[in-house]
């Protein structure tokens, strides 16, 4: 079935994920050609609607769209009517009138891309919404891991850091689990929620987490801007307890573990400088793969349809409804 939007990982079937990862491989081959462009989206328009600052995701989507020959328009939020109090709904109605084919949206509010998707016929791609989802980041992470472990089933990925505020942790762990990868979280007790999925192990002690024997260590950026109260005493203490210090990097090197990070890196917080030169750091691979994955996503979606969740329905969620059987 053709999909209009990509809003999260949870709704993706395993076959769809496999398809997108396969397609990403093909698109990545385009990068090696002298002309890094294919005509897949010729005549189509892609609108970049970024309400949050972003360099790498924004650029990655823009490059991906251009390599598919699409026209790219950047909606400059700082100079838009949003600053005059215009609602998202009004903005989307205006954009709808411009008949854009794809809207790539990033916003600090969880669920907002889904809301936009219900209001427009354009294909909406969630480029990160609050702490909810970042599906293309998850796809590029999975793609990067699969490059090192073509059959990743049974491999272990340890995600370290601020899980509470991280859309990357939610989406990437969800996707990796769909591929059969074991996932564990490590971080301060205040930032690793106790009510996360039961299938994900929860560590608050670095040594205990390393004893779990991960194959990949995935560091999350400490997002001080999302923390409305103090979750840990100091960055120095965070680095000492949860960061990749020089000593820990040596152990990681000896064990041959891969290191990933969605960027941008807080040097001296999540990791020491030496990690950037570590031969098994996949951080730059993630950036490159992001373009291929986003090309695959843009090529895969089908604009023009209604969002299947356009009308609220009583008890439409997957929740058990014991009272509703009367």
């Amino acid at each position: 079935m053709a999909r209009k939007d990509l809003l999260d990982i949870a709704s993706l079937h395993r076959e769809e994920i496999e398809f997108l990862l396969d397609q990403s491989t093909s698109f990545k081959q385009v990068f090696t050609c002298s002309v890094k462009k294919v005509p897949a989206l010729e005549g189509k328009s892609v609108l970049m609607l970024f309400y949050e600052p972003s360099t790498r995701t924004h650029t990655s989507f823009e490059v991906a769209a251009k390599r598919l020959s699409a026209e790219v328009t950047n909606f400059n939020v700082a100079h838009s009517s949003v600053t005059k109090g215009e609602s998202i709904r009004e903005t989307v109605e205006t954009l709808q009138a411009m008949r854009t084919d794809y809207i790539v949206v990033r916003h600090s509010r969880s669920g907002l891309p889904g809301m936009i998707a219900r209001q427009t016929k354009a294909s909406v791609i969630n480029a990160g919404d609050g702490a909810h989802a970042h599906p293309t980041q998850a796809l590029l992470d999975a793609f990067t891991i699969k490059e090192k472990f073509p059959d990743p089933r049974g491999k272990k990925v340890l995600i370290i850091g601020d899980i509470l505020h991280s859309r990357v942790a939610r989406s990437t762990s969800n996707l990796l689990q769909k591929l059969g990868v074991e996932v564990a979280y490590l971080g301060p007790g205040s930032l690793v929620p106790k009510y996360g999925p039961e299938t994900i192990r929860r560590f608050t002690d670095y040594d205990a987490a390393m004893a779990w024997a991960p194959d990949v260590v995935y560091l999350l950026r400490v997002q001080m801007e999302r923390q409305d109260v103090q979750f840990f005493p100091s960055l120095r203490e965070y680095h000492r307890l949860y960061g990749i210090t020089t000593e820990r990097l040596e152990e990681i090197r000896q064990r041959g573990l891969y290191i990933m990070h969605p960027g941008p890196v807080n040097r001296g917080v999540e990791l020491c400088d030496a990690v950037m030169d570590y031969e098994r750091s996949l951080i730059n691979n993630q950036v490159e793969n992001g373009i291929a994955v986003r090309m695959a996503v843009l090529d895969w979606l089908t604009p023009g349809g209604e969002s299947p969740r356009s009308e609220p329905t009583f008890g439409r969620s997957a929740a058990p409804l014991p009272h509703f059987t009367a």
Partner: protein
Amino acid sequence: MLLLQNARIASENSPTLLEGDVLIVEGKIQDVGNNLAIPEGARVIDARGRILMPAMFDAHVHFRAPGFENKETITTGSEAAINGGVTGVVMMPNTRPAIDSAAVVATVLESAERKSRIPVYTSGCVTKDRQGKELAEIDGMRALGVKMLTDDGDTTSDPAVLLRAMQYATEFGMFFASHCEVPELAGPRSLNEGVMSYRLGIKGSPACAEEIIIDRDIRLARAAGAHIHIQHVSSKLGMETIRWWKSRGDVKVTAEVAPHHLLFTDEHIGDYDTNYKMNPPLRTQADCDALLEGLKEGVFDLIATDHAPHTPFEKAQDFISAPNGITGLETALVSLYHFFVRPGKFGWDLVVKRYSAEPRRLMGLPVPTIEVGQPADCVLFDTEAETTFTKEFMKSKSQNTPFINQTLNGRVDMVILGTEILLER
């Protein structure tokens, strides 16, 4: 003159429905019995199979006037009440200006007198403009009939201010209603902290934010010798806290539960559906089950809807930006029937006791019954019919309810108040 024949009569004192005729003359119940003679000129209604019961009373509604008449007015709110089988309400004071002085109370009550076909009562603020700093002009409000003091919508944060208010106003025979929430813990998001908040990526509001204040305010009331009424309890431990305090017997505590907290869980929010966004938030199935248990045990003295209208535009925002609250007046009685009475979870006697009698007792009002000599204040309810909550059906100015466009079993067929038939379908 109205003769309802063969109705099934519900009362708060008996789970058994009595079948019989009820004759209403000049707004009073003149006779109740079997095969009553049809007086000359009487209108006869075949009520066979239908439930006749005292009309409901909602001690917790937001009619948004003054200040937010785009959401609701006293006219539309009271018509919504009638539509749901409710013949009396208590407004909350979180209006603009807030209902914190005799002048505003007088304005509201005068407006209600002109615009509502049912009695509309109002609560008054504990503190000026609900700021939690200075006491509101309590005696002036009391002189106009205000009995309930509350900063509803917010907790009176400073316990010293609330304690002083309790010590002062208890002497005037007033009682306190508490919206229980530590704001620093709850945050502005109104989503239960748990599996769902993690999944949706929204920082949740833990149940302890509510439970702490339930306990705090009861302790303050005990210290002041005040009557404390705990509003819209949502959590199991909150219910158990109230049960424990009631069992001690050394403080006057009453409490209410809203139908939505009995019916829905945070899982119903699904894909960020703002019609399930309310404060306190929907919690878990275990909480729902405990609240139902508390209602049946009498931990909760009354059912109240916290009818909270908001415009479609406001509710069409993303989940975090959308305001808290759902409407409840028009759906409460039918949903209580559909989900609880019909499947046998509790009987009509509980509905009458908790949604008709006790709220009136809380407010010091006479309690209507279907008995000879009583004023007519009753509802005729068809258990075999259905209600579809369409926009056209709703009388409220707002339709922010999970029940919108849904069909449930049961229908309010007739609402009678004194000499008037307020509603007839």
